[in-house]
Protein backbone atom coordinates (compact mmCIF):
# COMPACT_ATOMS: atom_id res chain seq x y z
CA UNK A 1 0.00 0.00 0.00
CA UNK A 2 1.16 3.48 -0.59
CA UNK A 3 -0.14 6.78 0.65
CA UNK A 4 -2.12 8.39 -2.13
CA UNK A 5 -0.76 11.51 -3.76
CA UNK A 6 -3.76 13.56 -4.60
CA UNK A 7 -3.93 17.23 -5.30
CA UNK A 8 -6.48 18.76 -2.96
CA UNK A 9 -9.50 20.13 -4.80
CA UNK A 10 -9.97 23.81 -5.22
CA UNK A 11 -12.05 25.36 -2.47
CA UNK A 12 -15.72 25.19 -3.43
CA UNK A 13 -16.35 28.90 -3.18
CA UNK A 14 -14.31 32.07 -2.86
CA UNK A 15 -15.51 32.45 0.71
CA UNK A 16 -14.01 29.15 1.68
CA UNK A 17 -10.64 29.96 0.24
CA UNK A 18 -7.79 30.88 2.53
CA UNK A 19 -7.54 34.66 2.79
CA UNK A 20 -3.87 34.49 1.85
CA UNK A 21 -2.52 33.15 -1.45
CA UNK A 22 -2.11 29.39 -1.60
CA UNK A 23 1.39 28.44 -0.50
CA UNK A 24 3.72 27.99 -3.43
CA UNK A 25 7.06 27.87 -1.68
CA UNK A 26 8.57 26.22 1.32
CA UNK A 27 8.10 29.23 3.57
CA UNK A 28 4.61 28.27 4.75
CA UNK A 29 5.08 26.41 8.00
CA UNK A 30 2.59 23.81 9.08
CA UNK A 31 1.03 25.10 12.32
CA UNK A 32 1.07 21.57 13.74
CA UNK A 33 4.79 20.96 13.32
CA UNK A 34 7.17 22.98 15.44
CA UNK A 35 8.07 21.05 18.58
CA UNK A 36 11.04 19.13 17.20
CA UNK A 37 13.84 21.62 16.39
CA UNK A 38 15.54 19.00 14.17
CA UNK A 39 12.57 18.56 11.85
CA UNK A 40 9.72 20.80 10.79
CA UNK A 41 7.11 20.62 8.08
CA UNK A 42 6.09 23.17 5.49
CA UNK A 43 3.42 23.01 2.81
CA UNK A 44 4.56 23.15 -0.81
CA UNK A 45 1.61 22.89 -3.16
CA UNK A 46 0.42 19.31 -3.22
CA UNK A 47 3.42 18.10 -1.28
CA UNK A 48 4.45 18.21 2.32
CA UNK A 49 8.11 19.08 2.74
CA UNK A 50 10.03 18.20 5.86
CA UNK A 51 13.01 20.44 6.53
CA UNK A 52 15.84 18.93 8.57
CA UNK A 53 18.71 20.54 10.42
CA UNK A 54 22.09 18.80 10.76
CA UNK A 55 20.84 16.54 13.53
CA UNK A 56 17.69 15.73 11.60
CA UNK A 57 19.80 14.90 8.55
CA UNK A 58 21.91 12.58 10.67
CA UNK A 59 18.74 10.77 11.76
CA UNK A 60 17.46 10.56 8.18
CA UNK A 61 20.75 9.12 6.96
CA UNK A 62 20.62 6.50 9.71
CA UNK A 63 17.01 5.61 8.89
CA UNK A 64 17.11 5.62 5.11
CA UNK A 65 20.12 3.28 5.01
CA UNK A 66 18.24 0.46 6.72
CA UNK A 67 16.28 -2.44 5.33
CA UNK A 68 13.76 -1.72 8.10
CA UNK A 69 12.96 1.64 6.48
CA UNK A 70 12.53 0.21 2.99
CA UNK A 71 10.30 -2.56 4.30
CA UNK A 72 8.16 -0.22 6.41
CA UNK A 73 7.58 2.09 3.43
CA UNK A 74 6.86 -0.80 1.08
CA UNK A 75 4.23 -2.32 3.34
CA UNK A 76 2.58 1.04 3.97
CA UNK A 77 3.45 1.45 7.66
CA UNK A 78 5.69 4.45 7.01
CA UNK A 79 4.97 7.37 4.69
CA UNK A 80 6.90 7.71 1.45
CA UNK A 81 9.81 10.14 1.53
CA UNK A 82 11.86 11.56 -1.34
CA UNK A 83 14.90 13.78 -0.84
CA UNK A 84 14.56 17.12 -2.57
CA UNK A 85 16.80 20.17 -2.76
CA UNK A 86 16.76 21.91 0.62
CA UNK A 87 16.14 25.64 0.87
CA UNK A 88 18.71 27.92 2.47
CA UNK A 89 19.00 27.30 6.17
CA UNK A 90 18.14 23.60 6.04
CA UNK A 91 20.55 20.71 5.88
CA UNK A 92 18.11 18.49 3.97
CA UNK A 93 14.53 18.37 2.77
CA UNK A 94 12.17 15.43 2.30
CA UNK A 95 9.00 15.50 0.21
CA UNK A 96 6.05 13.46 1.42
CA UNK A 97 2.65 12.97 -0.19
CA UNK A 98 0.08 15.46 1.03
CA UNK A 99 -2.62 13.37 2.62
CA UNK A 100 -6.23 13.86 1.59
CA UNK A 101 -7.51 14.44 5.08
CA UNK A 102 -6.01 14.78 8.54
CA UNK A 103 -7.82 13.49 11.60
CA UNK A 104 -6.83 13.72 15.22
CA UNK A 105 -6.81 11.10 18.00
CA UNK A 106 -9.78 12.71 19.70
CA UNK A 107 -11.73 12.01 16.51
CA UNK A 108 -10.73 8.33 16.35
CA UNK A 109 -12.60 5.31 17.56
CA UNK A 110 -11.21 2.81 20.05
CA UNK A 111 -9.98 0.41 17.36
CA UNK A 112 -8.31 3.23 15.45
CA UNK A 113 -6.31 4.37 18.49
CA UNK A 114 -5.44 0.77 19.34
CA UNK A 115 -4.16 0.11 15.81
CA UNK A 116 -2.19 3.35 15.89
CA UNK A 117 -0.64 2.27 19.22
CA UNK A 118 0.31 -1.11 17.82
CA UNK A 119 1.87 0.57 14.79
CA UNK A 120 3.91 2.83 17.05
CA UNK A 121 5.16 -0.15 19.07
CA UNK A 122 5.76 -2.28 15.99
CA UNK A 123 7.87 0.42 14.37
CA UNK A 124 9.84 1.02 17.55
CA UNK A 125 10.56 -2.68 17.87
CA UNK A 126 11.72 -2.81 14.25
CA UNK A 127 13.73 0.38 14.62
CA UNK A 128 15.59 -0.91 17.69
CA UNK A 129 16.45 -4.05 15.74
CA UNK A 130 18.01 -1.81 13.09
CA UNK A 131 20.00 0.27 15.59
CA UNK A 132 17.48 3.13 15.59
CA UNK A 133 14.97 4.57 18.00
CA UNK A 134 11.87 6.77 17.78
CA UNK A 135 12.31 9.86 19.90
CA UNK A 136 8.65 10.49 20.61
CA UNK A 137 5.45 8.47 20.82
CA UNK A 138 2.44 10.57 19.95
CA UNK A 139 -0.64 9.51 17.94
CA UNK A 140 -0.34 12.79 16.05
CA UNK A 141 2.46 11.05 14.14
CA UNK A 142 -0.06 8.55 12.79
CA UNK A 143 -2.69 9.14 10.13
CA UNK A 144 -5.22 6.85 8.50
CA UNK A 145 -4.77 6.36 4.76
CA UNK A 146 -7.23 4.10 2.96
CA UNK A 147 -8.41 2.81 6.31
CA UNK A 148 -5.00 1.82 7.64
CA UNK A 149 -2.67 3.61 10.07
CA UNK A 150 0.46 5.14 8.56
CA UNK A 151 3.34 6.69 10.50
CA UNK A 152 3.99 10.09 8.95
CA UNK A 153 6.88 11.55 10.92
CA UNK A 154 10.15 10.15 9.56
CA UNK A 155 11.88 12.91 11.49
CA UNK A 156 11.14 10.99 14.68
CA UNK A 157 13.70 8.31 13.86
CA UNK A 158 17.30 8.63 14.92
CA UNK A 159 20.24 6.36 15.67
CA UNK A 160 19.95 4.64 19.04
CA UNK A 161 22.66 5.76 21.43
CA UNK A 162 23.92 3.14 23.82
CA UNK A 163 22.50 3.52 27.31
CA UNK A 164 19.57 5.71 26.29
CA UNK A 165 16.10 4.83 27.63
CA UNK A 166 12.96 5.09 25.50
CA UNK A 167 12.38 8.82 25.57
CA UNK A 168 8.80 8.46 24.36
CA UNK A 169 7.64 5.96 26.99
CA UNK A 170 5.80 8.44 29.20
CA UNK A 171 4.24 10.08 26.14
CA UNK A 172 3.15 6.67 24.86
CA UNK A 173 1.38 5.91 28.10
CA UNK A 174 -0.35 9.31 28.25
CA UNK A 175 -1.46 9.52 24.64
CA UNK A 176 -2.00 5.88 23.70
CA UNK A 177 -2.11 3.47 26.62
CA UNK A 178 -4.08 5.39 29.24
CA UNK A 179 -6.81 6.49 26.79
CA UNK A 180 -7.20 2.88 25.67
CA UNK A 181 -7.35 1.71 29.29
CA UNK A 182 -9.97 4.34 30.02
CA UNK A 183 -12.25 2.80 27.42
CA UNK A 184 -11.38 -0.88 27.81
CA UNK A 185 -11.18 -1.02 31.59
CA UNK A 186 -13.31 1.84 32.86
CA UNK A 187 -15.81 2.09 29.99
CA UNK A 188 -15.11 5.82 29.71
CA UNK A 189 -14.69 7.39 26.24
CA UNK A 190 -11.16 8.72 25.83
CA UNK A 191 -11.95 11.28 23.11
CA UNK A 192 -13.22 14.07 25.40
CA UNK A 193 -10.07 13.74 27.51
CA UNK A 194 -7.69 13.83 24.53
CA UNK A 195 -9.60 16.77 23.11
CA UNK A 196 -9.51 18.61 26.42
CA UNK A 197 -5.85 17.88 27.18
CA UNK A 198 -3.76 17.23 24.07
CA UNK A 199 -1.04 15.62 26.20
CA UNK A 200 -3.43 12.99 27.55
CA UNK A 201 -4.06 11.89 31.15
CA UNK A 202 -1.08 11.71 33.51
CA UNK A 203 -0.21 8.53 35.36
CA UNK A 204 -1.43 10.17 38.56
CA UNK A 205 -4.79 10.97 36.98
CA UNK A 206 -5.07 7.52 35.43
CA UNK A 207 -4.33 5.91 38.80
CA UNK A 208 -7.37 7.66 40.24
CA UNK A 209 -9.53 6.47 37.35
CA UNK A 210 -8.62 2.79 37.56
CA UNK A 211 -11.67 0.66 38.36
CA UNK A 212 -11.39 -1.33 41.59
CA UNK A 213 -11.16 -4.62 39.73
CA UNK A 214 -8.07 -3.49 37.83
CA UNK A 215 -6.08 -1.79 40.57
CA UNK A 216 -4.01 -4.92 41.27
CA UNK A 217 -3.61 -5.88 37.62
CA UNK A 218 0.11 -6.22 36.90
CA UNK A 219 0.01 -3.74 34.01
CA UNK A 220 -1.95 -1.26 36.10
CA UNK A 221 0.53 -1.62 38.95
CA UNK A 222 3.50 -0.94 36.69
CA UNK A 223 2.46 1.44 33.93
CA UNK A 224 -0.04 3.40 35.98
CA UNK A 225 0.40 3.24 39.73
CA UNK A 226 4.16 2.75 39.94
CA UNK A 227 4.78 5.31 37.21
CA UNK A 228 2.59 7.80 39.06
CA UNK A 229 4.47 7.20 42.28
CA UNK A 230 7.92 7.38 40.73
CA UNK A 231 7.08 10.52 38.78
CA UNK A 232 5.90 12.10 42.00
CA UNK A 233 8.98 11.04 43.97
CA UNK A 234 11.56 11.82 41.32
CA UNK A 235 10.22 15.18 40.25
CA UNK A 236 12.57 16.85 37.79
CA UNK A 237 15.81 15.25 38.99
CA UNK A 238 17.65 14.09 35.89
CA UNK A 239 18.49 10.38 35.73
CA UNK A 240 19.15 9.99 32.01
CA UNK A 241 22.93 9.90 32.27
CA UNK A 242 22.82 7.78 35.42
CA UNK A 243 20.69 5.16 33.67
CA UNK A 244 23.24 4.86 30.88
CA UNK A 245 26.10 4.51 33.32
CA UNK A 246 24.15 1.90 35.30
CA UNK A 247 23.98 -0.34 32.23
CA UNK A 248 20.66 0.50 30.55
CA UNK A 249 20.42 -1.25 27.18
CA UNK A 250 18.12 -1.41 24.19
CA UNK A 251 17.11 -4.90 25.35
CA UNK A 252 15.27 -3.31 28.27
CA UNK A 253 13.32 -1.12 25.88
CA UNK A 254 12.54 -4.11 23.69
CA UNK A 255 11.27 -6.07 26.68
CA UNK A 256 8.98 -3.17 27.61
CA UNK A 257 7.77 -2.70 24.03
CA UNK A 258 6.93 -6.38 23.61
CA UNK A 259 4.97 -6.44 26.86
CA UNK A 260 3.13 -3.29 25.82
CA UNK A 261 2.27 -4.87 22.46
CA UNK A 262 0.70 -7.83 24.22
CA UNK A 263 -1.17 -5.57 26.60
CA UNK A 264 -2.51 -3.23 23.89
CA UNK A 265 -3.48 -6.11 21.59
CA UNK A 266 -5.43 -7.69 24.45
CA UNK A 267 -7.54 -4.60 25.10
CA UNK A 268 -11.13 -4.87 23.96
CA UNK A 269 -14.06 -2.51 24.18
CA UNK A 270 -17.35 -4.22 24.89
CA UNK A 271 -19.40 -1.50 23.19
CA UNK A 272 -17.65 -1.99 19.88
CA UNK A 273 -20.16 -4.58 18.68
CA UNK A 274 -23.29 -2.60 19.56
CA UNK A 275 -23.21 -0.36 16.52
CA UNK A 276 -24.67 -2.25 13.63
CA UNK A 277 -27.50 -3.97 15.45
CA UNK A 278 -29.08 -0.85 16.92
CA UNK A 279 -28.78 1.15 13.72
CA UNK A 280 -30.16 -1.29 11.18
CA UNK A 281 -33.11 -2.05 13.45
CA UNK A 282 -34.55 1.39 12.61
CA UNK A 283 -37.27 0.79 10.02
CA UNK A 284 -36.61 3.95 8.01
CA UNK A 285 -32.99 2.94 7.46
CA UNK A 286 -33.75 -0.07 5.29
CA UNK A 287 -36.91 1.51 3.83
CA UNK A 288 -35.23 4.63 2.45
CA UNK A 289 -31.67 3.47 1.90
CA UNK A 290 -31.91 2.65 -1.80
CA UNK A 291 -33.74 5.90 -2.66
CA UNK A 292 -31.26 8.00 -0.73
CA UNK A 293 -28.39 6.21 -2.42
CA UNK A 294 -29.81 6.92 -5.88
CA UNK A 295 -30.40 10.58 -4.94
CA UNK A 296 -26.74 10.82 -3.88
CA UNK A 297 -25.44 9.11 -7.00
CA UNK A 298 -27.43 11.50 -9.18
CA UNK A 299 -25.87 14.46 -7.36
CA UNK A 300 -22.37 13.00 -7.62
CA UNK A 301 -22.82 12.45 -11.35
CA UNK A 302 -24.23 15.95 -11.81
CA UNK A 303 -21.61 17.75 -9.74
CA UNK A 304 -18.52 15.57 -10.17
CA UNK A 305 -17.83 16.00 -6.47
CA UNK A 306 -14.29 15.21 -5.31
CA UNK A 307 -14.51 15.89 -1.59
CA UNK A 308 -17.69 14.82 0.16
CA UNK A 309 -18.39 15.33 3.85
CA UNK A 310 -21.07 12.97 5.14
CA UNK A 311 -22.52 14.58 8.26
CA UNK A 312 -24.27 12.02 10.43
CA UNK A 313 -22.74 9.20 8.40
CA UNK A 314 -23.90 6.39 10.68
CA UNK A 315 -22.63 3.11 9.21
CA UNK A 316 -20.93 4.95 6.34
CA UNK A 317 -23.16 3.50 3.60
CA UNK A 318 -23.48 6.78 1.71
CA UNK A 319 -19.83 7.70 2.27
CA UNK A 320 -18.92 4.43 0.63
CA UNK A 321 -21.11 5.28 -2.38
CA UNK A 322 -19.22 8.57 -2.75
CA UNK A 323 -15.85 6.86 -2.28
CA UNK A 324 -16.78 4.25 -4.89
CA UNK A 325 -17.27 7.09 -7.35
CA UNK A 326 -13.75 8.32 -6.72
CA UNK A 327 -14.40 11.06 -4.18
CA UNK A 328 -12.76 11.44 -0.81
CA UNK A 329 -15.60 10.84 1.63
CA UNK A 330 -15.28 12.00 5.22
CA UNK A 331 -17.75 10.03 7.34
CA UNK A 332 -18.62 12.10 10.41
CA UNK A 333 -20.75 10.81 13.25
CA UNK A 334 -21.00 10.97 17.02
CA UNK A 335 -21.88 7.32 17.56
CA UNK A 336 -18.64 5.45 18.23
CA UNK A 337 -19.91 1.87 17.83
CA UNK A 338 -21.03 2.36 14.21
CA UNK A 339 -17.87 4.19 13.22
CA UNK A 340 -15.72 1.60 14.97
CA UNK A 341 -17.54 -1.13 13.08
CA UNK A 342 -17.03 0.83 9.85
CA UNK A 343 -13.30 1.07 10.55
CA UNK A 344 -12.96 -2.60 11.48
CA UNK A 345 -14.74 -3.50 8.24
CA UNK A 346 -11.77 -2.00 6.32
CA UNK A 347 -13.82 0.41 4.19
CA UNK A 348 -11.03 0.81 1.66
CA UNK A 349 -9.74 3.76 -0.36
CA UNK A 350 -11.26 7.19 -0.26
CA UNK A 351 -13.02 7.02 3.07
CA UNK A 352 -11.99 8.88 6.21
CA UNK A 353 -13.63 8.46 9.59
CA UNK A 354 -14.26 11.24 12.12
CA UNK A 355 -15.93 10.77 15.47
CA UNK A 356 -17.33 14.05 16.72
CA UNK A 357 -20.54 15.60 17.97
CA UNK A 358 -21.80 17.88 15.21
CA UNK A 359 -23.45 20.10 17.78
CA UNK A 360 -19.93 20.62 19.16
CA UNK A 361 -17.41 19.69 16.45
CA UNK A 362 -13.65 19.61 17.02
CA UNK A 363 -12.42 23.17 17.51
CA UNK A 364 -9.17 24.77 16.44
CA UNK A 365 -6.87 24.36 19.41
CA UNK A 366 -3.37 23.73 20.67
CA UNK A 367 -0.59 26.31 20.58
CA UNK A 368 -1.87 29.74 19.55
CA UNK A 369 -5.22 28.11 18.91
CA UNK A 370 -3.94 26.88 15.52
CA UNK A 371 -1.85 23.79 16.17
CA UNK A 372 -4.78 21.47 15.52
CA UNK A 373 -7.24 23.13 13.11
CA UNK A 374 -10.95 22.67 13.57
CA UNK A 375 -12.83 19.91 11.79
CA UNK A 376 -14.62 22.47 9.66
CA UNK A 377 -11.30 23.99 8.53
CA UNK A 378 -10.02 20.56 7.54
CA UNK A 379 -13.22 19.35 5.91
CA UNK A 380 -13.44 21.79 2.98
CA UNK A 381 -16.13 19.82 1.12
CA UNK A 382 -17.45 20.37 -2.39
CA UNK A 383 -20.55 18.39 -1.45
CA UNK A 384 -22.21 17.95 1.95
CA UNK A 385 -24.50 15.05 2.76
CA UNK A 386 -26.84 15.63 5.70
CA UNK A 387 -29.02 12.55 5.66
CA UNK A 388 -30.85 11.62 8.85
CA UNK A 389 -29.17 14.45 10.70
CA UNK A 390 -31.13 17.65 11.12
CA UNK A 391 -33.84 16.24 13.41
CA UNK A 392 -31.10 15.18 15.84
CA UNK A 393 -29.74 18.73 15.81
CA UNK A 394 -33.16 20.41 16.03
CA UNK A 395 -34.92 18.11 18.48
CA UNK A 396 -31.97 16.44 20.20
CA UNK A 397 -29.50 19.31 20.58
CA UNK A 398 -32.13 22.11 20.51
CA UNK A 399 -30.50 23.96 17.61
CA UNK A 400 -33.10 26.24 15.96
CA UNK A 401 -33.97 25.18 12.38
CA UNK A 402 -32.81 28.54 11.01
CA UNK A 403 -29.37 27.97 12.58
CA UNK A 404 -29.16 24.49 11.11
CA UNK A 405 -29.90 25.81 7.62
CA UNK A 406 -27.48 28.71 8.07
CA UNK A 407 -24.80 26.24 9.18
CA UNK A 408 -25.38 24.02 6.14
CA UNK A 409 -25.10 27.05 3.88
CA UNK A 410 -21.86 28.12 5.50
CA UNK A 411 -20.02 25.27 3.81
CA UNK A 412 -20.53 27.23 0.60
CA UNK A 413 -21.15 24.15 -1.50
CA UNK A 414 -24.05 21.96 -2.68
CA UNK A 415 -25.89 20.14 0.10
CA UNK A 416 -28.08 17.04 0.13
CA UNK A 417 -30.30 17.32 3.17
CA UNK A 418 -33.03 15.05 4.49
CA UNK A 419 -35.91 16.98 6.02
CA UNK A 420 -37.67 15.12 8.84
CA UNK A 421 -41.05 16.45 9.92
CA UNK A 422 -42.31 16.66 13.52
CA UNK A 423 -44.74 13.83 12.69
CA UNK A 424 -41.93 11.37 11.91
CA UNK A 425 -41.67 8.44 14.30
CA UNK A 426 -38.05 9.25 15.15
CA UNK A 427 -38.90 12.86 15.99
CA UNK A 428 -41.75 11.67 18.19
CA UNK A 429 -39.23 9.58 20.12
CA UNK A 430 -36.74 12.44 20.33
CA UNK A 431 -39.28 14.89 21.77
CA UNK A 432 -40.90 12.38 24.10
CA UNK A 433 -39.70 14.21 27.20
CA UNK A 434 -40.27 17.73 25.89
CA UNK A 435 -43.38 19.89 26.03
CA UNK A 436 -44.56 21.63 22.81
CA UNK A 437 -43.54 25.09 24.02
CA UNK A 438 -40.04 23.81 24.73
CA UNK A 439 -39.43 23.17 21.02
CA UNK A 440 -38.13 25.72 18.53
CA UNK A 441 -40.69 26.90 15.98
CA UNK A 442 -40.07 26.37 12.28
CA UNK A 443 -39.94 22.61 12.18
CA UNK A 444 -42.77 22.04 9.71
CA UNK A 445 -41.99 21.34 6.07
CA UNK A 446 -43.35 24.68 4.83
CA UNK A 447 -41.21 26.52 7.39
CA UNK A 448 -38.17 24.52 6.38
CA UNK A 449 -38.68 25.22 2.69
CA UNK A 450 -38.90 28.94 3.47
CA UNK A 451 -35.63 28.76 5.38
CA UNK A 452 -33.94 26.90 2.55
CA UNK A 453 -35.01 29.58 0.06
CA UNK A 454 -33.05 32.18 2.01
CA UNK A 455 -29.76 30.38 1.36
CA UNK A 456 -30.20 27.80 -1.39
CA UNK A 457 -31.78 27.02 -4.73
CA UNK A 458 -33.48 23.63 -4.73
CA UNK A 459 -32.41 21.64 -7.78
CA UNK A 460 -34.07 18.33 -6.91
CA UNK A 461 -36.28 16.85 -4.23
CA UNK A 462 -37.61 13.41 -3.41
CA UNK A 463 -40.28 12.36 -0.92
CA UNK A 464 -39.41 9.37 1.22
CA UNK A 465 -41.33 6.54 2.84
CA UNK A 466 -44.48 7.58 4.63
CA UNK A 467 -44.30 11.23 3.65
CA UNK A 468 -42.64 12.55 6.79
CA UNK A 469 -39.26 12.89 5.12
CA UNK A 470 -38.07 14.74 2.02
CA UNK A 471 -34.67 14.81 0.34
CA UNK A 472 -33.50 18.15 -1.03
CA UNK A 473 -30.58 18.72 -3.40
CA UNK A 474 -29.48 22.29 -2.79
CA UNK A 475 -27.15 24.71 -4.50
CA UNK A 476 -25.94 27.71 -2.50
CA UNK A 477 -27.18 31.12 -3.56
CA UNK A 478 -24.55 33.74 -4.36
CA UNK A 479 -23.64 35.49 -1.15
CA UNK A 480 -24.61 39.09 -0.66
CA UNK A 481 -21.33 39.74 1.14
CA UNK A 482 -20.51 39.85 4.76
CA UNK A 483 -22.10 36.49 5.41
CA UNK A 484 -20.00 34.60 7.92
CA UNK A 485 -18.55 31.31 6.77
CA UNK A 486 -17.28 28.47 8.86
CA UNK A 487 -13.71 28.35 7.72
CA UNK A 488 -11.49 30.76 9.55
CA UNK A 489 -7.82 30.98 10.31
CA UNK A 490 -4.99 29.82 8.12
CA UNK A 491 -4.22 27.01 5.78
CA UNK A 492 -5.40 23.79 7.40
CA UNK A 493 -2.56 21.59 8.51
CA UNK A 494 -2.16 18.67 6.19
CA UNK A 495 0.22 16.95 8.51
CA UNK A 496 -0.25 16.45 12.18
CA UNK A 497 3.01 15.36 13.64
CA UNK A 498 4.42 17.15 16.59
Amino acid at each position, binding site marked *: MSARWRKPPSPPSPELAHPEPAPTDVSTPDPGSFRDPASRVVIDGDKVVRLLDERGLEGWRSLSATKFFRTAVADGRLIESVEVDPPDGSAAALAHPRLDFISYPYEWTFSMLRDAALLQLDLLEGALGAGLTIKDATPYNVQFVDGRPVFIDVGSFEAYRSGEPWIGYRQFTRQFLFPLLLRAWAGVPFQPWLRGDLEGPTAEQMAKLLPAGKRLNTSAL*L*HVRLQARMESRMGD*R*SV*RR*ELGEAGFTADLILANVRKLKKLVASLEWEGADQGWSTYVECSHVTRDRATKGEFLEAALDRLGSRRVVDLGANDGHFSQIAAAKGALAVAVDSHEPVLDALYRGRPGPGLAIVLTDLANPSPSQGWAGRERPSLMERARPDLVIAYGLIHHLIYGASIPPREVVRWLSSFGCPVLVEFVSPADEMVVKLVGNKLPHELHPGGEEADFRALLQQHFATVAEQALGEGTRVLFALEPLPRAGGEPVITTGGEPAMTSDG
Partner: protein
Amino acid sequence: MIFGYLDPGSGSMILQAVIGGLAGIGVAFKAYRARRAINKAETGSEAGDVSAVEETTQPAES
Protein backbone atom coordinates in the same frame (compact mmCIF):
# COMPACT_ATOMS: atom_id res chain seq x y z
CA MET B 1 24.77 14.10 26.23
CA ILE B 2 22.27 15.12 23.58
CA PHE B 3 18.80 15.82 24.87
CA GLY B 4 15.67 15.43 22.76
CA TYR B 5 12.83 17.93 22.56
CA LEU B 6 10.57 15.71 24.63
CA ASP B 7 10.78 15.52 28.42
CA PRO B 8 10.79 11.80 29.11
CA GLY B 9 10.10 12.19 32.85
CA SER B 10 12.70 10.94 35.34
CA GLY B 11 10.40 8.56 37.17
CA SER B 12 9.10 7.16 33.89
CA MET B 13 12.66 6.55 32.66
CA ILE B 14 13.62 4.59 35.75
CA LEU B 15 10.36 2.67 35.53
CA GLN B 16 11.31 1.46 32.06
CA ALA B 17 14.27 -0.37 33.54
CA VAL B 18 12.05 -1.92 36.19
CA ILE B 19 9.58 -3.12 33.57
CA GLY B 20 12.43 -4.59 31.56
CA GLY B 21 12.82 -7.43 34.06
CA LEU B 22 15.25 -8.60 36.75
CA ALA B 23 18.33 -7.16 35.10
CA GLY B 24 16.51 -3.88 34.64
CA ILE B 25 15.63 -3.63 38.31
CA GLY B 26 19.33 -3.73 39.09
CA VAL B 27 19.94 -0.99 36.55
CA ALA B 28 17.17 1.09 38.10
CA PHE B 29 18.69 0.74 41.58
CA LYS B 30 22.14 1.68 40.38
CA ALA B 31 20.86 4.70 38.49
CA TYR B 32 18.77 5.83 41.40
CA ARG B 33 21.55 5.51 43.92
CA ALA B 34 23.93 7.34 41.60
CA ARG B 35 21.43 10.17 41.30
CA ARG B 36 20.99 10.28 45.05
CA ALA B 37 24.71 10.40 45.62
CA ILE B 38 25.05 13.31 43.21
CA ASN B 39 22.29 15.18 44.95
CA LYS B 40 23.84 14.61 48.35
CA ALA B 41 27.18 15.86 47.11
CA GLU B 42 25.64 18.92 45.48
CA THR B 43 23.14 19.97 48.10
CA GLY B 44 23.68 17.80 51.08
CA SER B 45 20.09 16.62 50.81
CA GLU B 46 18.48 13.36 49.92
CA ALA B 47 17.37 12.97 46.32
CA GLY B 48 14.05 11.65 47.42
CA ASP B 49 12.34 8.64 48.80
CA VAL B 50 13.78 5.50 47.30
CA SER B 51 10.86 3.42 48.50
CA ALA B 52 9.05 3.41 45.16
CA VAL B 53 11.99 1.64 43.56
CA GLU B 54 12.77 -0.55 46.55
CA GLU B 55 9.19 -1.79 46.72
CA THR B 56 9.49 -3.24 43.25
CA THR B 57 10.85 -6.64 44.10
CA GLN B 58 9.13 -8.68 41.42
CA PRO B 59 10.18 -8.85 37.77
CA ALA B 60 7.70 -7.01 35.61
CA GLU B 61 5.10 -8.90 33.67
CA SER B 62 2.48 -7.19 31.66
